[in-house]
């Protein structure tokens, strides 16, 4: 493939952050293209700074480039100034390594970490010079693929993406490559052309090819079903799950960018999956079961990674890192490693809400101590039982007390509003909790800052809350005002909130069906890219596009779904039985919590039994401070700083989580 660099270089002098487009990262691979090699362009549909650290993309990048029959390069969404320059100069989307044109690759594969990037996906396909509609592509066009957490409701992008890959990508990416390689080798007529290739891909477990399915609607216009057209195509596409994380010690060569990016540090994944069972948390539901990385492999990846990259910070990532078996030994081992010369800081991006975790944090952040973040998510105990985030007030206060007493002066608390059954008492409970945290801080410091960061809840597919009708913009705005007014007299307390309008737009896409694609397309055609960025977000684009399709926010976003209603994502599966999810939804409404199944008997959600896998954990005992409503005696959980744990056990995973799985990977929460 030809390099577009001579055409790109003159554009760079005029754009912001030109180094986004030059490549040159440590760890960048020299992809070897050739006639028998399948070429992949792995695309993160947001800016370079947001997309580069994505671990899922980096894992697949390495696995593909290790294969003799595959070559992978990367691309990111050019910022609006660069896109304008590229379109004016006739420069298409390109890879950052070889500056090769996107349309020259066999596959353009997108990582879908958030719904509001979908308009960028369309824009990038178009910028690549590839028809935006899958139906308009010919044998000469690349196959457009997508994976990541959002692929668990593929329908809104079904018109634009040729095939989706569900779940962990480590194994399936090779199987997909083999299908593509066979297609490359055989002459087009024999292989049935593009349709033949897509049919072959639809038979790879974990791969969903929308064009192989018919969508039907009932007389009222409700979805009646999504059914396969061919006898060989599965009725229901099940996600892929790797059983042994230890067999996949990736990334081995984490990319070190030339410019500063989000999460600019070494990342080592401690475990994948989470069974805390927070009902709002899609990541926790779709990545089950828990699979821990062996502790000695973690140590090796940390020490080799620090030596190779020169980073002075390592994040031990997972959905709830304090739950890793032997987390203390792991952390201490890193800090005491002589090669780190005492200058390496360790971060646990998902801190559990308990004093024990703070003790660990105090130890590991002794190098750099900025602020601590906890995610109680709900303002009252009742609310937290509904969402199954079983942290008692005492847990939070003990954690905050520990933080302030050990030198921190800033504490950040994450909350959701618009949760099922929420009352104004629950909402205002957020301020009550935060106010008490300020009071605790004042015991230790003259001036403290407590920030309550409030997000509007968007029900996510494949969770117990998938049936819940989202709060309206007006209702969320009213709650924000309640919080703001209640917090105003409290010195030291700051309330920050997510724009309820953006929450509504996310809701349009989150549970949309195939007809939502036309809405996304219209928003994109009217200039709505970078909708994740508040300076570019425009709700009017979304509501206008909805209206043009005869759709409403009331029906697509605010409406509760019924028990028997066909859901647009019923034909793809994260392993969770629908009746388990429905029962969990009823339990939520009954304010009934459910313990973590790592340490309690199985209640058959389906994630293990359906795939013949099970939890891989080194310790069958819950970690100290982490019993989360199981009623287990904390003293069995290891060393506990009793002073901080006066009453109840607690802990849970945060709502927004750092990246864990491969294809199924969220960017590490830019939330």
């Amino acid at each position, binding site marked *: 493939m030809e390099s577009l660099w001579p055409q790109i270089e003159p554009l*760079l002098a005029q754009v912001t952050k030109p180094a986004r487009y030059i490549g040159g990262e440590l760890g960048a691979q020299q992809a070897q293209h050739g006639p028998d090699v399948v070429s992949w362009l792995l695309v993160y549909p947001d800016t370079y700074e947001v997309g580069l650290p994505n671990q899922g993309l980096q894992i697949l990048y390495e696995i593909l480039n290790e294969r003799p029959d595959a070559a992978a390069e990367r691309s990111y969404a050019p910022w609006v100034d660069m896109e304008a320059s590229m379109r004016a100069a006739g420069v298409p989307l390109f890879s950052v390594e070889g500056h090769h044109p996107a349309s020259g690759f066999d596959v353009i594969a997108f990582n879908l970490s958030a719904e509001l990037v979908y308009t960028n996906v369309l824009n990038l396909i178009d910028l690549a010079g590839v028809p935006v509609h899958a139906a308009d592509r010919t044998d000469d066009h690349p196959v457009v693929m997508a994976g990541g957490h959002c692929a668990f409701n593929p329908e809104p992008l079904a018109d634009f993406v040729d095939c989706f890959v569900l779940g962990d990508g480590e194994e399936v990416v090779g199987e997909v490559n083999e299908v593509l390689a066979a297609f490359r080798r055989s002459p087009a007529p024999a292989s049935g052309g593009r349709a033949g290739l897509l049919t072959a891909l639809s038979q790879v477990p974990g791969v969903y090819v929308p064009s192989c399915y018919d969508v039907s609607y009932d007389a009222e216009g409700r979805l009646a079903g999504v059914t396969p057209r061919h006898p060989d195509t599965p009725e229901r596409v099940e996600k892929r799950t790797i059983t042994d994380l230890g067999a996949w010690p990736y990334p081995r060569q984490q990319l070190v960018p*030339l410019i500063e990016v989000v999460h600019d540090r070494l990342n080592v994944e401690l475990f994948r999956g989470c069974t805390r069972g927070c009902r709002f948390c899609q990541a926790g539901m779709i990545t089950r079961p828990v699979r821990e990385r062996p502790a000695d492999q973690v140590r090796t990846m940390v020490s080799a990674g620090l030596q190779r990259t020169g980073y002075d910070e390592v994040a031990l990532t997972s959905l709830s890192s304090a739950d890793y078996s032997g987390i203390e030994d792991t952390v201490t081992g890193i800090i005491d490693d002589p090669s780190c010369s005492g200058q390496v800081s360790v971060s646990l991006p998902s801190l559990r809400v308990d004093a024990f975790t703070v003790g660990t944090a105090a130890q590991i952040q002794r190098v750099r101590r900025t602020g601590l973040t906890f995610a109680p998510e709900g303002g009252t105990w009742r609310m937290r039982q509904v969402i199954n985030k079983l942290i008692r007030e005492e847990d939070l206060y003990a954690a905050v007390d520990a933080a302030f007493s050990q030198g921190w002066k800033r504490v950040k608390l994450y909350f959701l509003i618009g949760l099922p059954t929420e009352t104004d008492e629950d909402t205002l409970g957020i301020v009550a909790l935060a106010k008490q945290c300020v009071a605790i801080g004042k015991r230790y410091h003259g001036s403290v800052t407590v920030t309550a960061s409030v997000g509007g809840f968007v029900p996510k597919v494949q969770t117990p809350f998938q049936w819940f009708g989202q709060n309206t913009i007006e209702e969320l705005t009213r709650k924000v005002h309640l919080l703001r007014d209640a917090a105003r007299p409290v010195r030291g307390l700051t309330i920050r909130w997510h724009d309820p309008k953006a929450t509504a737009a996310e809701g349009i896409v989150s549970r949309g069906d195939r007809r939502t694609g036309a809405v996304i397309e219209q928003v994109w055609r009217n200039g709505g890219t970078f909708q994740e960025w508040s300076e570019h977000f425009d709700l009017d684009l979304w509501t206008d596009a909805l209206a043009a399709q005869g759709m409403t926010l009331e029906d697509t976003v605010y409406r509760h779904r019924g028990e028997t209603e066909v859901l647009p994502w019923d034909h793809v599966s994260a392993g969770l039985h629908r009746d388990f999810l429905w029962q969990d939804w009823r339990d939520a409404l009954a304010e009934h919590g459910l313990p973590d199944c790592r340490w309690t008997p199985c209640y058959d959600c389906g994630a293990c039994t359906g795939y013949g896998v099970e939890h891989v954990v080194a310790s069958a005992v819950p970690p100290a401070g982490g019993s989360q409503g199981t009623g287990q005696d904390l003293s069995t959980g290891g060393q506990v700083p009793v002073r901080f744990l006066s009453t109840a056990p607690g802990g849970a995973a945060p709502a927004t989580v750092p990246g864990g799985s491969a294809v199924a990977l969220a960017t590490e929460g830019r939330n």
Partner: protein
Amino acid sequence: MRIRFRFSKQGRIRFTSQRDVARMWERALRRADLPMAYTEGFNPRPQLSFGLALPTGAESLAEYVDVALDPERATDQGIDPATLPDLLDGLLPDGLHVEEAVPVERSKDSLQQMVTSCSWTMRIAGVDRDGLAAMVSALLAADTVPITRERKGREELDDLRPSVLALAVAEAGPDGVADPSGRTVGLVAELSTRPRGVRPVELLRGLIAVSGGSADRPMDGPAASGRPGSIPVIDRACRTEQWIERDGLRQEPLLGRVVPAGADRASHALERAS
């Protein structure tokens, strides 16, 4: 103990910022396992001090960084500065090339404070050789060259003229070869850092202003080049030297090589680049 490095920044990496380069050095020094001295406090950082910031997009043959080492550990490890350029060259990204390293005295002035002027070579597009020569003559003949510059978010009017110590049309561009397309004209300049550093784009703005052009915002790039009636733009710019002037003599900051003020060093710089 303090080690001063001289390095170049050429090619694609010119699109990274000064801050990016500082971070590249920090990572490379850690990978080299050098016993760096750290700042005190909650947020200890390695003690690195760079010379005058290089604008993003410009190349350089003359960048400097002072690295403070922990004296005890440095002695224990027996650091030999002569081995450091090769070691660090292998650890820095492509495009950063370490040329020399020498121990320097701890001085109360930072490199940034000591540097008094910088030599530049540039390739200018959108103007022919005669046109550029006329602009250069006009600037050198002018008593004052007012330009507006942005400082802390505000527009300020500055006189550029005292900062232009030398200026001439040249045969060669920044990489030591004439632009094969013949599209650009070479320009060499020595620009004072006092009272404030002058960026190549600001020099160009001054050149356009003295020749009667409207130059509120000449573009820092070649987009307008080649079109009739277009304004001159910088195609490439390269800093070839940073100077410390004392008692009428210019010193190169690393080895203290002395050159009489006013002597043309461009040819030396171009040899280094080849």
